[in-house]
């Protein structure tokens, strides 16, 4: 449906344009500016061309951070999406327990990120943490500050605990929109539970699932606060994701040029993935109509 063309509408958009300009576009341009120059302090800048980009793209450090980042996002998606679907399917469709389940699901989402990090940081400590001490007592060797695998497991479990609810809620909304007649028809057609899922529930959920995948991918790809609080990127650099690396480089080492170049590469990767998702979604839309 195309709407009215009314030039007054631009005035309504103006405040947003201004805010976005100050909060996003201008800082981004500054970053672009840094990425092509070098500085030794005193506000003196030297033209560097694409040097920083080349350096970042060739650097071992960037490669391993990006590798970790992709691995982390992949693990997160591989666990949270199926788990979210399973929980959503298991939730009651109507009745007394519905609000109860919904509130339970929404709880982790309401907790601020650094608090989540702190909770798990303490939870996993072997001296005072409930989980850490318990594992230690039953003889499981567990120490996320020293063992890489333990650190990864802790971060993944934390993220799953924190964010699976989002996938659950999105899937649940998708499931709720399926009319009863579909389930009845499936029963009449003698469809198994799996066939009902495969041919009714999954097709009706595919739109929300795409949104869930996109949101979870972007969020996990940009994860910073929680691992920073729990592991600080360690042990060694084993949980140093792109964002943590970036902050270390920019603030810790004050290497503004490479950090700026890295930010832009990071930004472009996320943009690329979002674009791919958007294309897939609009393609599915067209196919459906």
């Amino acid at each position, binding site marked *: 449906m195309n709407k009215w063309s009314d030039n007054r509408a631009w005035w309504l958009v103006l405040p947003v344009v201004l805010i976005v300009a100050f909060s996003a576009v201008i800082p981004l341009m500054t970053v672009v500016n840094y990425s092509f120059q070098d500085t030794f302090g005193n506000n003196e800048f030297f033209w560097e061309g694409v040097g920083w980009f080349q350096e970042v793209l060739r650097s071992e450090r960037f490669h391993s951070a990006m590798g970790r980042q992709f691995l982390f996002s992949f693990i997160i998606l591989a666990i949270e999406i199926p788990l979210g679907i399973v929980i959503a399917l298991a939730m009651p469709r109507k009745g007394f327990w519905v609000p109860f389940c919904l509130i339970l699901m929404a709880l982790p989402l309401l907790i601020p990120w650094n608090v989540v990090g702190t909770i798990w940081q303490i939870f996993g400590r072997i001296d005072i943490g409930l989980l850490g001490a318990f594992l230690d007592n039953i003889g499981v060797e567990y120490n996320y500050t020293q063992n890489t695998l333990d650190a990864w497991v802790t971060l993944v479990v934390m993220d799953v605990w924190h964010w699976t609810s989002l996938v659950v809620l999105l899937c649940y909304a998708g499931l709720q929109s399926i*009319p009863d007649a*579909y389930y*009845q*028809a499936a*029963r*009449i057609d003698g469809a198994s539970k799996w*066939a009902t899922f495969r041919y009714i529930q999954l097709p009706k959920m595919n739109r929300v699932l795409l949104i869930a995948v996109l949101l979870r991918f972007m969020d996990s790809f940009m994860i910073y606060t929680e691992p920073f609080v729990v592991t600080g990127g360690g042990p060694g650099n084993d949980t140093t994701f792109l964002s943590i690396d970036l902050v270390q480089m920019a603030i810790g080492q004050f290497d503004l040029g490479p950090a700026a170049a890295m930010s832009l590469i990071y930004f472009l990767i996320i943009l690329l993935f979002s674009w791919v998702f958007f294309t897939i979604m609009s393609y599915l839309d067209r196919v459906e109509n």
Partner: protein
Amino acid sequence: MARIELNHLAHSYMPTIQSPEEFALKELNHVWEDGGAYALLGPSGCGKTTLLNIISGLLIPTHGEIRFDGEDVTRKATEARNIAQVFQFPVIYDTMSVYDNLAFPLRNRGVAANDVDRRVREIAELLELSDTLKHKASGLTADAKQKISLGRGLVRADVSAILFDEPLTVIDPHLKWQLRSQLKHLHKRFNYTMVYVTHDQTEALTFADKVVVMYDGAVVQMGTPEELFERPKHTFVGYFIGSPGMNVVPCHIDGDKAMVAGHAFAMEQGFSKIPTGASLEVGIRPEFLSLSREGSGPEVSIQKVEDLGRFKVASVRLEEHEFKVMVGEDQEVPTDGARLIVDPTHVNLYANSHLVEEA
């Protein structure tokens, strides 16, 4: 195909029942013959959907039992009943092709692939869907989708009954005619037991051999379209069936005639004993009234004439009573001095809204 028996069937949505009004479906006993086409007709909230859900196995009735070919299925799950159902809004598997949609019920039951193929093609041919077998089902029109839902029922050789829940709601009037006559044709050819729920009298009457008219949770009459039209058992049936409905006006009896506002209406069928103290009404369909300048009928004043192309409907007044009269396309409505001519073979007498049987 199966014969369906409903024995002492009643249902209430309340957990405990305090009064008879709390029954959404009041006790009923019916036998629906194998191969019959039945329509459940009534306004919304009359209990027709409740009854359908009991037959399909979605609801377990509070009282009574339901039998398919003598076998008690009251507590059997939907999937174990061998029924097929077409819903109000088309239910199709969006991601599948038309072919796969039709094959789905057979594949679920482990039917061999070549049998599936033969059956699907046969049914597609029958429903005129052969050209679209390779298409994705989601891209089709509403009427084609409804045919697919029907087809998913027909492919199964073991179907006991096919249930229809207002299946033509989303179909354009022109296509309704096609789809309906196709249904009728299928029924005549294969003798499926069919149960069709609707609030639309034309659909019910044209589809069914027997129409079950429901009102307020109870069956008020079950009969052929002709019986419902000519001898409605209850004034509600007279009103609900026919467009416009039956004229129902208060009367009293003088000898063998019904007196309306001092004018005598002859009743050729006669009538049996009238319960004492009952309030009496005559019911005459607009189709059995005519207007003329000559004849012996009472003089009436014309209130309004609606021309509906194929026929006209004249609203006339006899004292304080209003009658609707159907006038043919080529006939004129007299503007003044019109007399109301009554067909004496089609005057029904009602005592407390129930038909007084003929003598």
